[in-house]
């Protein structure tokens, strides 16, 4: 697939690197000559210096024959112009990163139907909604929903209070339906084996029917409870959106903003949120905001250092769940060392969202999970090889992936003894990256029998 990435910042590099590793032809357009030189050594892609909105540059990279153009510079207008021009020139799929919500409002139908941009990604909104998901399911770092929302696939971190510690997974108690599919330990993802004994800090990938998600995650992660009070540090675009999402729930939300005019604006926008005009980093300010009584603390100011400091202070004060926005990659390795429960990088989230969109467009609906696993939802056709097989049997047939759940009618079912795949079932397959490419034929009608 021929791909053009406009903008060689962190988002652009991540998109370009992944697509290039998947075997696509990638051309990166970057306006800054110094950055161009750096990029040349970093990624296996053609780097061209210039502006993505320029007809000359678009011609030079042959946008007319490109399959995909992703405009991801930090400038909304530049991205829109590049995407619009590319669409006119004949690019198949266009993606634009647009931060200002005024361009499109709450839904993207204007972008799709009027402008012809296939996918608009707003990093702030995507980040805020990811954080809100993590808060709504405490114990889970990330959660994504499948099968019209009936099934949750959550990534949880094993804590000291988890009942899984020191017990082989096969022997664990099962008060709630939940299927542990994968494990990430020290950055290595693998499928679960029954004899594995979880340790503190392990990330587990779990498939759970949505109705049981909260209870199951709380049980597995250990000692988590529903977030009733949340303190948000920083009332920038992400903070505002997050507060707006959370105020629609019953949660008590407190928002700390240090700039007076902005604080006033936030208070006007958020009738059900307590907005405090305070610096928010220091112990005094956090005590005034009752951070010690909060179930969750989210640092989402514009400055990574302030975010980390604030989150650390909040953790020391006793906030249960501490999360932070960390925009710059340099800080990411620090997070695990700092006892912060989860970190979110808007740029990585953006890159991932774009890659996931590209995957659904081109690679047979394989869905990348943030945890590094992949998901595909397939329908078992009548007479397919997989039909009639029990869950145990499928593990022998398929290497590197597992049946995560079965959606039959209105039910979401977790793999267990005696469960067989029937024709018409929608099966959620989970696997480590790259393992799902060969799974599709098992679900299709067998040609030999016809």
């Amino acid at each position, binding site marked *: 697939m021929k791909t053009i990435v406009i903008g060689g910042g962190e988002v652009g590099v991540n998109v370009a690197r992944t697509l290039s590793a998947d075997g696509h032809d990638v051309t990166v357009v970057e306006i800054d000559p110094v950055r161009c030189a750096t990029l040349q050594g970093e990624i296996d892609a053609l780097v061209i210096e210039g502006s993505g909105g320029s007809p000359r540059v678009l011609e030079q990279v042959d946008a007319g024959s490109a399959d995909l153009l992703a405009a991801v510079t930090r400038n909304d207008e530049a991205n829109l112009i590049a995407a619009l021009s590319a669409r006119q020139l004949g690019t198949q799929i266009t993606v634009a990163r647009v931060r200002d919500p005024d361009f499109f409002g709450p839904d993207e139908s204007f972008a799709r139907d009027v402008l012809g941009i296939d996918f608009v990604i707003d990093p702030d909104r995507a980040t805020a909604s990811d954080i809100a998901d993590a808060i709504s399911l405490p114990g889970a770092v990330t959660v994504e929903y499948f099968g019209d929302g009936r099934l949750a696939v959550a990534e949880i971190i094993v804590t000291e209070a988890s009942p899984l510690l020191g017990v082989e997974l096969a022997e664990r108690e099962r008060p709630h339906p939940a299927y542990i599919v994968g494990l990430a330990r020290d950055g290595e993802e693998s499928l679960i084996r029954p004899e594995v004994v979880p340790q503190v800090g392990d990330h587990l990938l779990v498939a759970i029917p949505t109705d049981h998600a909260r209870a199951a995650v709380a049980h597995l992660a250990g000692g988590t409870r529903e977030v009733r009070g949340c303190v948000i540090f920083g009332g920038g675009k992400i903070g505002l959106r997050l507060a707006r999402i959370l105020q629609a729930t019953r949660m008590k939300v407190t928002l700390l*903003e240090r700039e007076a005019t902005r*604080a*006033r604006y*936030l*208070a*006007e926008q958020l*009738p059900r949120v*307590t*907005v*405090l*005009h*305070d610096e928010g980093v220091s112990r005094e*300010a956090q005590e*005034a*905001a009752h951070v010690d009584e909060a179930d969750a603390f989210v640092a989402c100011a514009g400055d990574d250092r302030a975010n980390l400091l604030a989150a650390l202070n909040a953790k020391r004060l006793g906030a249960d769940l501490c999360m932070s926005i960390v925009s710059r990659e340099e800080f990411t390795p620090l997070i695990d060392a700092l006892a912060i429960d989860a970190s979110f990088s808007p740029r990585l989230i953006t890159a991932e969202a774009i890659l996931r969109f590209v995957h659904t467009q081109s690679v047979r609906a394989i869905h990348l999970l943030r945890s590094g696993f992949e998901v595909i939802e397939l329908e078992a056709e009548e007479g397919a090889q997989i039909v009639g097989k029990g869950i145990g049997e499928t593990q022998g047939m398929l290497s590197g992936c597992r049946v995560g759940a079965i959606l039959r009618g209105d039910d979401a079912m977790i793999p267990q003894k005696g469960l067989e795949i029937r024709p018409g079932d929608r099966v959620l397959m989970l696997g480590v990256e790259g393992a799902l490419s060969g799974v599709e034929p098992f679900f299709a009608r067998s040609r030999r029998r016809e």
Partner: protein
Amino acid sequence: MSARWLRVGPDAALVLLTIGGTFAACTIGLAVCAAVGELEGRASDAFAFTALGTLVLSALCLQLARAARRGLAVGPLAGLAAVTLAWIAASAVGGVALLAAGTFTSPLDAFFEATSGFTTTGATLLSEIEAQPDAVLLWRSIMQWLGGVGIVVVVVAIAPVTGPAVQRAFYAETTGITTERLTPRIVDTAKIIAAIYLVLSLAAVVAYALVGLGGFDAVNHAMTSVATGGFSTRDDSMAAFDSLPVELVAIFFMIAGGINFAFYWRAVRRKPVMPQAAEVLAFLAILVAAIAAVTLSVELAGEATLREAAFNVTSIVTSTGYTSADYDGWNQFARVGFLVLFTSGACAASTAGGIKVIRSVLLAKAARQELERPLQPRAVRVLRFGRHAYSEDVRRAVLGFFLVYAMIYVVGSLAMAATGVDPVTAISAASSALNIIGPGLGEIGPETTWEALPGFGRGLAIALMITGRLEVFTVVVLLVAIFGRRP
């Protein structure tokens, strides 16, 4: 008056224009009264001559205004001065007509009655109302009808006066916390308000006629109901008809007159009706609660029924002033309740007086926020009502209004008491005038007139009525600017 504050050219032009327009509007009303007087054969000359006088004065003012320099921006006080002077001029004209018709012999009394008319207070010095000529009764109603919607609104709606200067006068007269334009041009806004008012008034005439009032009574009461004025053609006010349907019609149109006119406009045009709709709901909620409380107290005491309570409470809350019972003779809870309800008022930008519902609600919310402040000093608190967030300027304006209002209330009550009347009479007279209600308690109660008040008290009431109708600030700012130290 310093030239620095009231620039002679355009400022004087605005004042002359407004007063000229006011005289013109009065001329029309007086001419109608002269015609009615001609039919009855009483007092027609008095009104005809007064009309002639106002016509000449109007032409004079408008001619002078035209001669003055135009097109320059007016000073900040010109609008306030224009409106205040227009209301005084209108009241003076009204008084002259009543003097000419022989209704009063004292100029002060005539001025009092006319001011009470234009400000839609409804306080009267006449004890033999039914003996008055039809022309006089109609003139009292017309004064209230013109004053109800606002003299400047009428002037702008009917006279060809335009320009940025007129806006100042327009806004200085409009009641409420924020001035809202319904249309890009102020003239169109005035026409819309006048049209809404006219429709309500005509509907009231039809409704009163349908429930059995004669043509003359129907027209007069329609005008004074919609204007939430309170003048009646009968000595016993609404009690004279002793008819439940009539009282229900009156209740309906008093409430209709107490609703924000911007709400009607938005509802008809299918525009978002917030926050006006929230104010209307709060207004109705206050009304229902007040009726319930008073009904309970009078039923328990066996003094009156729901019917009397509902009518008189509605009349007071909407600052109308009709009466159907002697509520001054009810239990002490009900009496003090009425005194409290004097201050409430209906919606902003309606024909009613008082603090207004929107201000009362915002005041209560502001008070609550101040009480919460020590618990969380860093919290940013926004004053909201009906999904609308108000700026800190509005908070200051509302608190400032209440402060000045309360001071005038207290000083007015004290000054009233200095005339020698009893405390209940003194406080209720000051409050009734300031909140443009009409009747008071004690010696000026619902069954009687304001004759018990001595001359000084009547003069004070005139000042309070105009101050109250123009929502305190217009008059007080003007006085401070004229007599206070220059900033």
